[in-house]
């Protein structure tokens, strides 16, 4: 720690640096895990009961931070899926569609409240199995999930007001497949509106993150949700395919990669099944020179490093107006120096573990590609844990639309930076992608904001903020980023048939 002004002449102002390494060293602050209940083995949750998979196959689920086995998860076969669909169908025809809408809503309210009671346990398990920092699962994922159930609970008996001139009817059985980046939150995004609209559900969590969905099943039991209304079927790609292909599923909802989304869209062609897709993205995050620069830098960082960049709407393409590019990049590098990569269970960790070995390999492959393509790479000095799957936050400077790292979704803490000069130019480049999920705009000028938001071809546009989610706010993409919206009034549509 220095004292008086350092009087030694600097070689140049450009060499000035702030010291973010020798200040406070935060001691490990591990979240307690002793109060958390994880079974050694989980069965499938079908018709309100825990049922062994017919072929008695199980697979391990591990912590991506320690590589330790957390539990054994059942692998559902096509026959197990059939059982689940039958249970959902039976519950739909004979129970759920007969219960008054008001009572349906009250079940969802109960579920929301119980999640709140168990919030800490959910957060801990989410971080243990998924790799995201406990700070995020505790402060963002779990509260949002509870909020989602609470919000849709209120819609159940108000559907007559949602779509003027139309009667809102439920559809039947919904098959839902969710990803590993927000396991509990995605389960809430899928289940809550489906149930509020009067449907029943067969849901498959991602194979690397099954635990919080299974704990959710315990909440359903505690809330007294009638048997078969929600069925949780664990497994991998084949299990998902079995759900998609099952003839008695009326609606498919999928969140995941664009490639798999296209496979699903093809698979149900001609079947009359309704479909919503939440796919990939490569969002443009645009800083104008009249932005509140320090706050914009914070928003850029949040946009790409939140949840290790495992976010479909991540702001992964930074466009910075040339006049402020040097300043922004310098501030961004400074900001990255105080990001802590480490144990997801440490309350101070900002960037947790990459969800799986496979995903880490994909990201590292892209880092190599970027370097080979000639982009300049920057990573702050940080010690990565020896075990587990970790990646340092990364910038690629001097990129262009033609770089692969700018075109393809990396799904990691990797930001590609380009400069731009005019509004027309950046709009063209921002929209120059087959994706269209989200975008960010940073400027102090109101009219410019509305001009940009009007012209950006993205389903969610954040102005002077980023990665904000709320159950009342519809979310979904244009173009290859998906079909349909989740959240808000519009999020009811995919689960209703209007007559």
């Amino acid at each position: 720690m220095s004292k008086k002004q350092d009087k030694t002449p600097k070689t140049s102002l450009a060499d000035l640096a702030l010291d973010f390494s020798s200040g406070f060293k935060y001691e490990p602050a591990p979240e307690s895990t002793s109060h958390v209940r994880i079974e050694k083995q989980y069965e499938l949750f079908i018709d309100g009961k825990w049922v062994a998979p017919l072929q008695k196959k199980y697979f391990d689920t591990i912590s991506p931070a320690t590589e330790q086995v957390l539990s054994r998860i059942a692998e559902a076969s096509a026959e197990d899926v059939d059982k689940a669909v039958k249970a959902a169908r039976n519950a739909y025809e004979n129970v759920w569609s007969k219960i008054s809408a008001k009572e349906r809503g009250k079940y969802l309210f109960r579920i929301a409240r119980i999640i709140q009671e168990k919030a800490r346990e959910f957060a801990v398990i989410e971080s243990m199995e998924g790799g995201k920092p406990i700070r995020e699962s505790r402060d963002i994922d779990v509260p949002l999930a509870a909020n989602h159930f609470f919000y849709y609970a209120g819609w159940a008996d108000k559907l007559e007001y949602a779509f003027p001139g139309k009667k809102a009817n439920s559809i039947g059985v919904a098959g839902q497949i969710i990803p590993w980046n927000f396991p509990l939150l995605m389960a809430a995004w899928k289940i809550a509106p489906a149930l509020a609209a009067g449907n029943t559900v067969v849901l498959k969590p991602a194979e690397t993150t099954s635990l919080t969905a299974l704990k959710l099943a315990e909440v359903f039991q505690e809330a007294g949700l009638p048997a078969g209304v929600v069925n949780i079927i664990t497994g991998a790609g084949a299990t998902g395919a079995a759900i998609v292909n099952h003839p008695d599923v009326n609606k498919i909802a999928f969140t995941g990669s664009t490639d798999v989304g296209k496979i699903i869209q093809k698979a149900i062609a001609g079947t009359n099944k309704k479909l919503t897709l939440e796919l990939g993205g490569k969002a443009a995050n645009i800083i104008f020179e009249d932005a509140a620069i320090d706050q914009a830098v914070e928003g850029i960082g949040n946009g790409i490093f939140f949840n290790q960049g495992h976010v479909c709407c991540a702001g992964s393409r930074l466009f910075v107006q040339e006049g402020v590019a040097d300043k922004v990049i310098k501030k961004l590098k400074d900001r990255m120096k105080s990001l802590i990569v480490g144990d997801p269970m440490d309350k101070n960790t900002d960037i947790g573990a990459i969800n799986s070995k496979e995903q880490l390999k994909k990201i590292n492959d892209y880092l190599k590609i970027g370097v080979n393509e000639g982009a300049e790479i920057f990573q702050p000095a940080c010690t990565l844990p020896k075990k587990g799957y970790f990646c340092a936050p990364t910038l690629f400077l001097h990129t262009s639309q033609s770089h692969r790292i700018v075109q393809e979704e990396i799904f990691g803490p990797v930001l590609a930076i380009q400069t731009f000069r005019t509004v027309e130019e950046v709009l063209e480049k921002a929209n120059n992608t087959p994706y269209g999920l989200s975008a960010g705009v940073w400027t102090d000028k109101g009219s410019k904001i509305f001009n940009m938001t009007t012209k950006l071809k993205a389903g969610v546009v954040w102005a002077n903020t980023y990665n904000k989610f709320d159950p009342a706010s519809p979310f979904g993409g244009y173009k290859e980023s998906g079909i349909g919206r989740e959240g808000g009034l519009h999020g009811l549509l995919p689960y209703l048939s209007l007559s």
Partner: protein
Amino acid sequence: MAAPKTTTKPSTNGTAPKAEVAAKNERLSVLKTYKIYINGQFPRTESGRYYPLKLSNKEQINVCLSSRKDFRNSVSAAREAQEKWAGKTAYNRSQILYRIAEMLETRRAQFTEELVNQGATAATAKEEISVSVDRLIYYAGWCDKFNQVFSSVNPVSSSHFNFSSLEPTGVVAAIADQNSRLLGLISIIAPVIASGNTIIALASHQFPLSAITFAEVLNASDVPAGVVNILTGEIAELLVPFTTHMDVNAVYINTNNQQDKVTAETNAALNVKRVRIEASIDWNQPQNEDPYRILDYTEVKTTWHPIGI
């Protein structure tokens, strides 16, 4: 709190009480004092006055006869609390309304006894409480949705982003359905506060008890002080202050009386209060809950901003 089992209260005509000597092992219960609810507290009426009420079990209760000063104090409290209540997120308000439902549900036994003591049958009491709980949940669910249903982005012909959304009107004074023991009161409080208004409600003159016990439920439900204020007393005395107070934004009067209607509407003109008047109804009917009761106490705010560079 259970109704007292033994009583040594004086009879209303002023003759000397016939004290019942408690049997050797019988316990004398503590009588409840029914006060009013202002600013999160339970004061007596500043006027010190009461009116007597005979219950089904022949007990007599002394009910606060609220004065216009009680109303004045309530309006101050409601005004003070309004900005912060409206400033809460809609989600927060919906959770608080849900909490009120939770608290009411858990006190079912107490309310049943009290409703029966005010002349209801056990069956109608049970139904009234159930509908009351469900009604609170109904409006809880509207807090974070009514703006989605009633707001709009307006396609104006100039290069402007133009949107309309609803904001709470402010402080609402309400005279509840005099024929209802509980549900009529809840059916006006819930939609009014759902959007961020605060309220002063006058309970039924003949059935005041559950209104006060409901105030206890509010007090236990994270409802901030001043958001709901409940008075007991007489319409004849309070109608004028309710409708002439210059710091009240809207008034709801449940009445069948044409003269009261004229008085209310005439007085409201003093500061252009929004006025809603309806007659006594069967609050159990599902058509008597809807989001338009929320809309009634909101203002539409329309904002323009250029779209350009």
